[in-house]
């Protein structure tokens, strides 16, 4: 009997230990937002803090890159605590295919009409709203690389060997980088006066050149912040970069030149979607509406964070030049996500086989 009491004591302590952490959870309303961990301090000031005040809600962040967060969302499925999720188009597409998103209700978004047409429903099935656009082009150390960089194929040049960094295949711009290199190689084959045809989604020429490119690499990057660090520490001199990273790259204090290569820049829309698991549908819509409103879009643009998709936002020319806006919106290349996604699984495997060596 005595030892019984001892055991009871033990169990009581155990129970207490197990329950205590749960008691810590607060009961004010929360909105869990899944987003990249990039520029969070600015987002907090521009977007989150005022929204929290307006709706008397706590925003909880789940940060990580696209695939990282998508993986978690898929793993948790209906048990997910995520309410709204920011993804690049390609990942919104994948998430939607797996059924973890719910369509938005256009009637609940007052600001939707102010957006460019292509941003209102980028996937054409109400899976999410485009809230910013960005583009992939090249940046290089103009003080250390003598010959001007003008083409995606310059990533293969011998004089930059050991100083190149490209996005990992699993990221938004991984497939895009390869497709653009392929386009550049095709352009070199052209005769005088010949026009470049449609995009070759198989990118055979680029795959053939990949081992050579791999030899030029310092490493691959998964996050733009990693690229910024590598540029700052002088490990990297030439890299494809996403336009939203330009502010951070320029802050490294090095002589960097951003170029739109001859073959063009790749445009890409980032989207906000509502998860199928959430029961805070109205709050989620309010969040999206807030993010696409004129004031937020302008504030984000002026801080060089997100290029606006709200057509009512007018930007000074010097700001516009650093973002994806103005004329660039008409000239940039937009890839067909269905074409890219159909090849992705196979590409990841081929990619790893080259990169692991």
């Amino acid at each position, binding site marked *: 009997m005595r*030892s*019984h009491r*001892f*055991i009871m004591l*033990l*169990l009581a302590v*155990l129970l207490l230990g197990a329950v205590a952490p749960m008691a810590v959870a607060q009961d004010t309303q929360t909105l869990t937002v899944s987003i990249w961990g990039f520029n969070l301090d600015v987002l907090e000031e521009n977007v989150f803090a005022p929204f929290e005040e307006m709706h008397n809600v706590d925003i909880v962040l789940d940060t990580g890159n696209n*695939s*990282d967060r*998508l*993986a*978690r969302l*898929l*793993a948790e499925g209906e048990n997910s605590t995520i309410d709204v999720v920011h993804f690049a188009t390609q990942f919104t597409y994948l998430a939607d295919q797996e059924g973890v998103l719910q369509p938005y209700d256009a009637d609940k978004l007052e600001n939707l009409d102010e957006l460019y047409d292509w941003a209102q429903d980028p996937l054409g099935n109400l899976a999410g709203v485009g809230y910013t656009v960005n583009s992939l082009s090249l940046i290089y150390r103009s003080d250390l690389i003598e010959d001007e960089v003008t083409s995606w194929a310059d990533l293969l040049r011998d004089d930059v060997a*050991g100083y190149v960094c490209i996005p*990992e295949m*699993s990221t938004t711009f991984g497939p895009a980088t390869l497709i653009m290199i392929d386009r550049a190689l095709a352009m070199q084959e052209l005769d005088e006066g010949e026009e470049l045809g449609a995009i070759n989604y198989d990118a055979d020429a680029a795959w053939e050149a990949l081992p050579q490119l791999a030899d030029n*690499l*310092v*490493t*691959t*990057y*998964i996050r733009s912040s990693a690229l910024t660090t590598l540029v700052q*520490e*002088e*490990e990297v001199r030439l890299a494809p970069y996403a336009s939203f990273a330009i502010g951070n790259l320029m802050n490294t204090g090095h002589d960097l030149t951003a170029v739109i290569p001859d073959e063009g820049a790749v445009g890409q829309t980032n989207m906000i979607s509502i998860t199928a698991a959430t029961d805070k549908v109205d709050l989620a819509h309010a969040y999206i509406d807030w993010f696409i409103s004129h004031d937020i879009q302008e504030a984000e643009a002026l801080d060089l964070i997100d290029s606006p998709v709200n057509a009512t936002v007018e930007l000074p020319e010097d700001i516009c030049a650093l973002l994806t806006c103005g004329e660039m919106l008409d000239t940039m290349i937009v890839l067909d996500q269905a074409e890219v996604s159909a090849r992705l699984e196979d590409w*990841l*495997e081929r990619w*790893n*086989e080259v*990169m*692991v*060596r």
Partner: protein
Amino acid sequence: MIRRPNQTRTIILLVAPAFVVVLVFFVLPLIFLLSQSVTPKEGGYTLTGYVDFFQSPVSRIVYLRTLKLGLIVTGICVLMSYPAAFVLARMPARRRTFLMSLVILPLMTNAVARTFAWLIILGRRGMVNQTLLSLEVVEEPVRFIFTETAIVLGLTQLFLPLMVLPLVSAMENIPDDVLEAARSLGANRLTTFLRIVVPMSSDGLVLGATLVFTGSVTAFVTPAILGGARLLLMSTLLRQEAVIVFDQHAAAVVAVVMILTTLAVNLLLRLLRVRQV
């Protein structure tokens, strides 16, 4: 020993609570992991995951690279620790206590902090490169980060204490008389060391090697920081399969291979220890 009629009941009551917790929250997840590794997305039970693992050039290269680096790290740790451990074991107790607490220090600091230092040391503008440049050994800074060398250095620093500690405690038990006897019989220092000290401390060596090797082949932080997205080891491959490629089946296979590898090494070296006794 105390004997009581209801001893069995007492033992069960003492052990059961913790045992159930470990069973439910540790053993069960591992069994689930094992079942995940043999049930691919398409359904059914099959060992194809393991066949794929050893056939795919990617995972095969990663696995062999992991084992290779583990061996190199273990070797370096042995070479660095042996003579030093001997000095430590022969020291007056007070000084030894102080020096041993310095050995534990790295073990007690988190791996992120420890690995971070190597980025500063090995970077293109880091200490090593600045020294090489100023000595004009090289013209351009050399790339160390994201190389196997960087990972080996990081892991060695991480696990060196796990070799030093068991070696010192094994060598403490070698009586001074034995060493003096060997010397007086005409053996020189090296012979004494190789013929007496090494065999008599082999227990510590085997234990240390087990700890260092298994530590190296399963460490995550160091390869994640110093290897980057491209130079993968088993642990970073597991993470990649699980959260980036999102192939839980393949990730489970990698995880099980990691467990089996550590278990095999532990068993092998334990057998070695038993045989020596």
